[in-house]
């Protein structure tokens, strides 16, 4: 069909990475020589053959993408989601011709512009005016296009009076605003965007989101990579979920996101031994955390108003009287929002020596859409924490119509609001 603008057929991307093999505790000098000699020999061979040199003494081939197939229609706004390392960014890099696929083929109909980063090629010594031209050209605009949109860009970035100041004197906010403004005025037929919205202050983010919405409505084809489910939900109509380099789900964005939310994986068992612990450590130690939804499915994404169940593993080495365990939910900026504490809810007991698993149910999560940090602690009631881990994982809240009134929580979340409290509104007096 002719309205298909991007067609990906069996795309694969292979990287070769090197590992330093584990050194045995007793290594003979001879082994070290042998190992290094092999490595140098291999590097020299690579050099002569024109292959890239890879550090490390054992090699491994990794497929960042494998057998990826899909089609994108004219005017479609597609969200690409998946965990870190699922291959999202690699996919965009292939589409934007930065790197070439190791297998397969992509057919693209139309002028492509990619935004993998805000402010690519900005030069600190140049002024704002000069950087608009530089960055615009790098992103693929022609000089005359930039000229005709120059005033719009400057107005959008709100930097009129600093136009002739080198950008190295800009505040980071101004810098990001200018960079986004240039990017926002690109007018390609196909736009590839990678997580660029995570910049600027809340007000500017809202403005960016509005602009993105407008771009999407103009009938441009957009591929949008993001970790932020609420943004994807708001912008895109269809979605693609990648899982370890393969397409896991493809379809309407709602289905793809709910699949992503439900996705069962071992990532849900969070081994706390690898994380930084604080506290006195005399009695007990936090071992693991697992998070489930109301159907007992492991997840890290919840819709507003749904139930979360958290399990905590604790290993006790000395009997602990008047024991307390808790979970802390804090904002992305690290400000505590909720403490969920065992003793507050009447669980008062002593903890015997041995391994224990605690479970806490949070019946209605009233956080606004966004990402939040989870931490946990154990202690003797009234004493300093015996063991605590500050940043165990993040959970993501996506908007939902919790009270049936159709509130636009996403919008308020962008302006910095974090907690929802139910309230009742009535008009008690009207004077005409």
């Amino acid at each position: 069909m002719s309205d298909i603008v991007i067609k990906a057929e069996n795309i694969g991307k292979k990287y070769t990475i090197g590992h330093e093999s584990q050194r045995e505790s007793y290594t003979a000098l001879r082994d070290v020589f042998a190992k290094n000699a092999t490595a140098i020999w291999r590097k020299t061979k690579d050099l002569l053959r024109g292959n890239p040199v890879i550090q490390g003494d054992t090699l491994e081939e990794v497929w960042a993408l494998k057998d990826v197939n899909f089609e994108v229609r004219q005017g479609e706004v597609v969200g690409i989601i998946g965990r870190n390392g699922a291959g999202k960014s690699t996919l965009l890099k292939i589409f934007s011709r930065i790197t070439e696929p190791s297998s397969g083929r992509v057919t693209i109909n139309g002028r492509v512009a990619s935004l993998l980063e805000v402010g690519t090629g900005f030069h600190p010594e140049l002024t704002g005016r000069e950087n608009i031209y530089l960055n615009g050209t790098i992103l693929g605009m022609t000089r005359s296009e930039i000229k005709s949109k120059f005033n719009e860009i400057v107005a959008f970035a709100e930097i009129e009076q600093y136009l002739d100041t080198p950008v190295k004197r800009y505040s980071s906010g101004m810098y990001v605003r200018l960079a986004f403004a240039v990017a926002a005025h690109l007018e390609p037929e196909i736009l590839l965007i990678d997580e660029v919205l995570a910049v600027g202050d809340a007000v500017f983010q809202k403005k960016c989101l509005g602009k993105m919405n407008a771009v999407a409505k103009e009938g441009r084809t957009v591929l949008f990579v993001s970790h932020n489910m609420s943004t994807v939900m708001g912008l895109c109509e269809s979605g693609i979920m990648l899982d370890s380099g393969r397409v896991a789900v493809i379809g309407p964005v709602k289905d793809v996101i709910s699949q992503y939310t439900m996705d069962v994986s071992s990532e849900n068992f969070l081994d706390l031994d690898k994380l930084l612990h604080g506290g006195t450590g005399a009695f007990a130690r936090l071992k693991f955390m697992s998070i489930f939804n109301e159907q007992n499915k492991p997840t890290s994404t919840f819709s507003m108003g749904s139930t979360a169940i958290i399990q905590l593993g604790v290993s006790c080495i000395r009997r602990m009287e008047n024991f307390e365990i808790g979970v802390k939910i804090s904002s992305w900026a690290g400000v505590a929002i909720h403490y969920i504490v065992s003793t507050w809810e009447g669980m008062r007991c002593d903890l015997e020596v041995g391994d224990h698993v605690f479970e806490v149910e949070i019946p209605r999560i009233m956080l606004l859409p966004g990402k939040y940090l989870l931490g946990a602690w154990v202690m003797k009631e009234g004493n300093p924490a015996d063991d605590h881990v500050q940043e165990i994982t993040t959970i993501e809240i996506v908007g939902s119509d919790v009270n049936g009134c159709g509130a636009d929580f996403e919008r308020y979340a962008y302006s910095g609001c974090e907690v929802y409290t139910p309230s009742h509104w009535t008009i008690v007096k009207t004077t005409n």
Partner: protein
Amino acid sequence: MSKIVIEAGQTEKNYWADLWRYRELFLILAWRDLSVRYKQTIIGILWAILRPFLTMVVFTIIFSRIAKLPSDGNAPYALMVFAAMLPWSLFSSSLTESSNSLIDNANLISKVYFPRIIMPTATLITALVDFLISFSILIFIMIYYQFSPGWNILLLPFFIVMALLASLGPGLWITALNVKYRDFRYVIPFVVQFGLYISPVGFTSKVIPEQWRMIYSLNPMVGVIDGFRWCILGAESPIYLPGFLVSLIIVAFFLWLGIAHFRKMEKTFADII
């Protein structure tokens, strides 16, 4: 509507056409390099004049006064040295800049697409502008010595292009290698420092014994410098044609080698930079 097909292991069919499409990027990158070159310096553009001039003074004193080497015909020694300083600094600065161009712009390489060859070639413009500025000094020196050039000076643009191409070939090759092996970063300053003394900058190539001149011309800068001297000093410095042809062939060979290697490695730059 433009249609692109990206396929594994396929060389770009419309590579050279693409190059034309990206000409604005070429110009703006060259302009960027130029405009940031002397930012936050006090005497700014004067550096482009001062460096070759001071080197000329030192060379004239050492080679003419102390080592008592002969000049080309009756040409003033200082003028002869400066006629070689010009192409040498053009060559050395464009070689240095172009061979570092890719890693200096690693960020661009990994975030946007453009024909990568634009990057090293754009740096030649900076070197060329520096050259044109220091060229004005040559005019002053000629007036000072009351030396008027002949018709040969009209052929100078040819030798300027030759100097640029002489640096572009190795420059492309080394910048591509630099992406993979940062070792080459340390090679260039060494080559440039060395080259100043093995090329006939401080002395005339006529001091080289006749039987060695062919071999000496394997250094492409010998041909370029002799050409410059021939253009500027005219009859005082006749060109040694067989040697010049050897230099020309070497320049062409390195240019071919550079472009071929660059094209071959280009597609992996973003993955390994």
